[in-house]
């Protein structure tokens, strides 16, 4: 374990050094993500200039949900961004061989190799929105709710990771799977708003199949009302764990099926 951490921080410091090489580039990137979120919020404000409530939620609550959903998304984006490369080119180009000749877990190696600073844009924005809207959205912070909040964020991030991991691993069979990841990943857009606005079909899909509803709306409902923690928070933990197990199974099977390019 100590060795693993040591390697992780070593690779992390490599990433920071790399960022310094392309400082301006990465700062611009992170700044762009902030702008994107600001525009998204601006849109919500414009809507609420005309209506008092959306699906029974106030402006502050909608902003809270929106902001909350950005935190797990940003965390996952920051730490496991390299999974995209697996689906887009690492497997296809045969670069995966390299990881197999190293005496550490290839999945760990790939994830540790990239630290995506751009995600700071989403994270910062998410935290700001949650902080400014929490009070008026009716969120009461108690020791219990803070603990549950943190648990929810961690497991919600893992939902993102699992979806990327499971779909990226398809590349072991079909060589390029980045577009599949893209379609599944884009489903997270649904997480920014209350799931009650969607049709039953879509609600079922984003709750049980591509469960992004657990990365935003459900935990927020608990924070607003304190109701049903078993489903709203417990659901995040269970769904996320199940999904991670499925993703790891796909990944491990993929490793066995891996036939590197250009045999």
């Amino acid at each position: 374990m100590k060795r693993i951490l040591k390697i992780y921080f070593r690779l992390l410091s490599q990433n920071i050094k790399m960022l310094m090489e392309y400082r301006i580039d990465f700062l611009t990137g992170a700044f762009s993500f902030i702008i994107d979120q600001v525009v998204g919020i601006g849109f919500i404000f414009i809507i609420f200039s005309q209506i008092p409530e959306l699906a029974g939620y106030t402006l502050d609550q909608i902003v809270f949900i929106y902001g909350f959903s950005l935190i797990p998304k940003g965390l996952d984006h920051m730490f496991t961004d390299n999974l995209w490369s697996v689906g887009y080119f690492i497997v296809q180009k045969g670069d995966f061989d390299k990881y197999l000749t190293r005496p550490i877990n290839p999945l760990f190696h790939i994830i540790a190799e990239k630290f995506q600073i751009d995600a700071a844009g989403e994270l910062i924005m998410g935290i700001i929105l949650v902080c400014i809207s929490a009070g008026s959205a009716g969120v009461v912070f108690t020791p219990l709710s803070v603990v549950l909040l943190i648990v929810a964020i961690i497991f919600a991030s893992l939902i993102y990771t699992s979806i990327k991991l499971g779909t990226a691993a398809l590349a072991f069979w079909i060589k390029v799977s980045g577009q599949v990841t893209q379609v599944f990943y884009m489903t997270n857009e649904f997480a920014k708003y209350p799931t009650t606005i969607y049709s039953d079909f879509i609600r079922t899909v984003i709750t049980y199949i591509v469960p992004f509803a657990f990365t935003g709306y459900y935990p927020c409902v608990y924070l607003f009302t304190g109701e049903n923690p078993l489903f709203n928070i417990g659901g995040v933990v269970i769904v996320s764990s199940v999904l991670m197990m499925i993703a790891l199974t796909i990944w491990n099977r993929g490793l066995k099926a891996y036939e590197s390019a250009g045999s």
Partner: protein
Amino acid sequence: MNKFFRLYMPFTRAGIQSTLMYSINIIFFSLSELLYCFVMYYVWLAVFDASDGQNFMGFDMQDMVLYLFMTNVTAYLTMSQADSAIAEEIKDGSIAMRLLKPVDYHISILFKDIANPIILFFMVFLPMTVCVEIYRGVTAGMIMFQPLNCLLYLLSGIIAYLVSFYLNMCFGFLAFYVTNLWGVSMFKKILLKFLSGAAIPLAFMPAALKNILAFLPFSSLSYTPVMIYMGKYTGAELLLNVGLQVFWLIALIVLCKLIWNRAIRRLCVQGG
């Protein structure tokens, strides 16, 4: 004229072939964009549900659906990859090879880039528009499709594409000065989404901001053609907006040539 096309058509043909190789990518990319449209569709349903009237700042639900899907498809259709094409050539030095060929640099890039909208027109625009029109027809109980508007839309769309192309050319020339374009192009993409009205319809913005954005070249990219398709612009307003598109197109062509002439001198001084 004939000779002109004979000289440049091969660029388009090569462009179409290489784009078609990625047709799977295009389908998946369109699918994920479509997901976004659906999210917004439901948001609008909820908004109209929450507001008392049938009207939201001059748009009804049908308008909104039309706006939403048409804006996305138009933005996609008028997208140009000229910036990355140029940036890559500048970076790996193959731009020097281009200059040796007896063709105009800008036009050859244009004819290659144009493959993109041609393919997208068939693969994305046609099916999408048919679906949207069916939706409109069913909800209104009658055929809403306006052939004239559609025709004008296509005309305005062509200008929009050209504006987008020259805008991206100018942007691509940045690679002469900046080594890594990743962050900047991310920034450009997100800024364009906002400035062109793809993120929030210009009509919903505060009046002052709206007027400025409507005048800037970015509204030419998707907002103007979509408004024409929706029949929101007629008569003088229509002429004015298309005129504005043409104005920006000319301005950008001139700007592009200016930057090019300066950059080329720099290229020669450095010895490529």
